[in-house]
Every structure is written in C-alpha cells, then in structure tokens.
C-alpha cells in the first residue's frame, strides 16, 4: 500500500510520519508508540479513542490520518508534558474514577474540554457532556466526583497569585 509522508504537530512537537490512506488517527498514534487513544467500539460511540484536533475533541477511530497534515494533534500523553499530572488527571486518581482504565484517557480529555468551556458544570451538565463516553466498569459516580474535584481545583489555582 502506498504510504505518504505527512507532517503535523503531536502534543506541540513537529512530527513526520508515513501513513497509508486507510490509516486512522489511532493507527497513526500506535505507529508512533502513543497508546493512550484506544480503539474500542470503532464507531465513534464510546470515546476511548478521543483525541484533540486543533483543540477540538474528535473520535480518532473515525478520522483519516492523512487529514491531520499541518494540524495540531493532542493526546493524553501531552497532558503531563512537564512531568506533572494535569489537574484533571490528578482528580481522577483522587476520586478513584476508574477500575480497568481503558476508557480513562478519553474521559480525561473530554473533561479537560468540558472545564475549558464551563468552569462550574453541574452534575447534569457533566453527564450530558460526557454522555458519548462509555465506562464498562461503570465508574460513573466517581467520574462525576472527579469532574467536581477538578473544577474546584482549577478555580482555586486561578485565584492564587502568580
């Protein structure tokens, strides 16, 4: 199969990769040893493959790799780039918001987006926002706790003087 060279930004760093026309973003990431985005349902329903393209959440399993050329692709691997977990990542640990962890990277990226759009989501707003992500361990109550924890923490950090 003919492969093409593309360049794009992966978690802020320029990357060159060879992709075949059939590759999805999940395939591309696996070839680059990034395993946080996982294909589960393969139909865009479950959210395990969530990644951000130019800052917007998409299902990596439904997006052709070739179309990322020149764009920013952000994944869970970029969240602790400075060696420190993001507020949302830490909140998931503190709330115990997972069992097997398969869905967690997708949930965390969606919660990051949610809190960027709405710094004080109600539980209903969080449920609605996350309704396209599935957790088969059913850690939903703890995930909602994590949203609350992360929202509070992000607000308290904003109030602290720089």
């Amino acid at each position: 199969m003919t492969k093409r060279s593309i360049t794009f930004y992966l978690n802020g760093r320029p990357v060159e990769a060879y992709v075949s026309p059939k590759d999805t973003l999940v395939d591309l990431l696996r070839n680059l040893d990034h395993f946080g985005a996982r294909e589960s349902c393969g139909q865009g329903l479950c959210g395990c493959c969530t990644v951000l393209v130019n800052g917007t959440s998409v299902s990596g399993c439904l997006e052709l790799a070739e179309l990322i050329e020149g764009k920013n692709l952000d994944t869970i691997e970029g969240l602790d780039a400075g060696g420190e977990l993001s507020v949302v990542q830490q909140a998931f640990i503190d709330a115990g918001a997972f069992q097997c962890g398969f869905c967690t990277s997708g949930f965390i990226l969606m919660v990051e987006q949610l809190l960027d759009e709405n710094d004080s989501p109600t539980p209903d707003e969080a449920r609605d926002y996350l309704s396209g992500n599935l957790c088969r361990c059913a850690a939903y109550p703890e995930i909602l706790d994590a949203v609350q924890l992360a929202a509070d923490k992000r607000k308290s950090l904003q109030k602290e003087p720089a």
Partner: protein
Amino acid sequence: MTYEILKPETLQDAFGLLDTDDPMVRPFSGGTALMLMMKSGIFSPSRLVVLRDIPGLNGIRLEEDGSLWIGALTTLAELEKSDLVAQHAPVVTHALRHLSNRRVRNVARIGGALAHGDPHMDLPPLLSALNAEVIVEGSNQGRRISVQDLVTGYYETSLESNELIVAVRIPSQQSWQSAYRKFTARSADDWPALGVAVSLNASRNEIQDLRLVVGAATERPTRLEQSEGILRQEGRSGLERATEAAMASVEFMDDAHGSSQWKKALLRVELRRAVQEILDRNT
C-alpha cells in the same frame, strides 16, 4: 485494494475530480458516516475527494428575506451553538443536543448528513418539515432541491456524481412552529428508531397549514400527506384519525433499531405528542 485521498482547494477542481462514471469515487466532508461504511467493508472507495479545504462553504447567515443560509461544511457542533439557528429554527438546536455525541458533532457536516441519504438520520425529516432546500452546484448549472425531494430512496439521492451541496437554506418560519420527536432503542443520542418532525402554522390556535414528516422508520423521509389533509380540515379534533391514517399509509422498515410493528406503534404515540407539543405551547 487501496484508494487515493485528494484535497481540492476549489469547487471547480472538486467537480473535475468527481466527474467520473466510477461509483467508488466519493466526496468526503466530515466522513463520520462514510468511515463506518469503509471500516465495515460495505464501501470500498477508489477515490475520496475531501472537501474540507474548499473556501466559501462555511458559516451561517441570515439572508434579507429572513431565511437562514448554512454553508454545507458547517459542522453539526457549529449549528448547535449558533445563536442565529437558536433564534430562527430553535427546533434544530434542540434536536442537535441528542444527535450523536459531541465528538461526532464536532466533525460531521450538514451537507454530508443530507447527501449521504441515510434514512436513520434526524436532520433530513426535520429539515424537510421546515421546508428547507439544498443549494447545489456542479459542472453544469446550479440548482435548488427541496430536502424532501433530495432523498429518493434508501441511501439514494437526486444528486448527480458531479454535483455537490454547497449550502442549506431554511426559509423564514414566520408564524410556523415546529417540533421534532425522536425515539431511540438504546441511548438518547443513538440513531433514531423513529423520528417525527412536525411544522404547524397554528395562528389563532387553529391549524392553518402543516407539514408532517416521519424518518428512520421508513426507507426515506416520508411526508404524511393524508394525515396533513385530515388535520387541515378537522383541526386538532382530527388528531386521532390523522394518526390512524399515518399508521396505515406508511411502509415501515425493520432494522437493528426495531421491528416494523413496533415502529408503527411508536408512530401512533410520537406523532400525536409532536402535534400536541406545538398546540400546547399556544394555550
């Protein structure tokens, strides 16, 4: 078998790439639906013509005649968040909240949602009830097609291979009011087992005129003309008879979302509720 991915930067270039007898050449915008077909092996393209880089097909604006012009590449998320849509076609804003999930809405485009001809969609029956039309351009002369006439059958549309939807136009709704009711067999944001769209011109709380469209239970969005006639003549007192007529006139389709018998029962309930919902707003 592999395929080529081409990214034209003008409509003219796109028409050139699409103007072929090869049925495996396809335009590709958001691609969320086509990707499912490709991954499951139902569709094996020879060429994908990616439309995303073509300028002029984005955005939502209010025209002088009060209609909404929506560029074909507008994402469903942009539609959902648009103040203009919320003001002039609130039923669309409302329906989008339960149309698939946020990530799909971030990528899927209104033009593709209509051109795909998939009967299991929310927007085709809804836009049909709003009397919307698509603005089509092609290698030859452009034309306008009502959304109702666009879909001709199961995944079939009246578009030629070298034609593209460039925009959707929703006419000014004036005194018309609309409701869309969707019933899903699984989660709330699933593909509908049945969708019913109703637009009523109910000034003075009497039904002056109306459009009833059922989707998902049928092989294409279907106008319920007989039921419309009954309600036009008899007003709200004819609702029971109109519902019976709808159940008798529609050819229901079995699929993974439910049996035809069940969908028939759903139509009885949801059609009545959709009409009632609008009438109740005015009392």
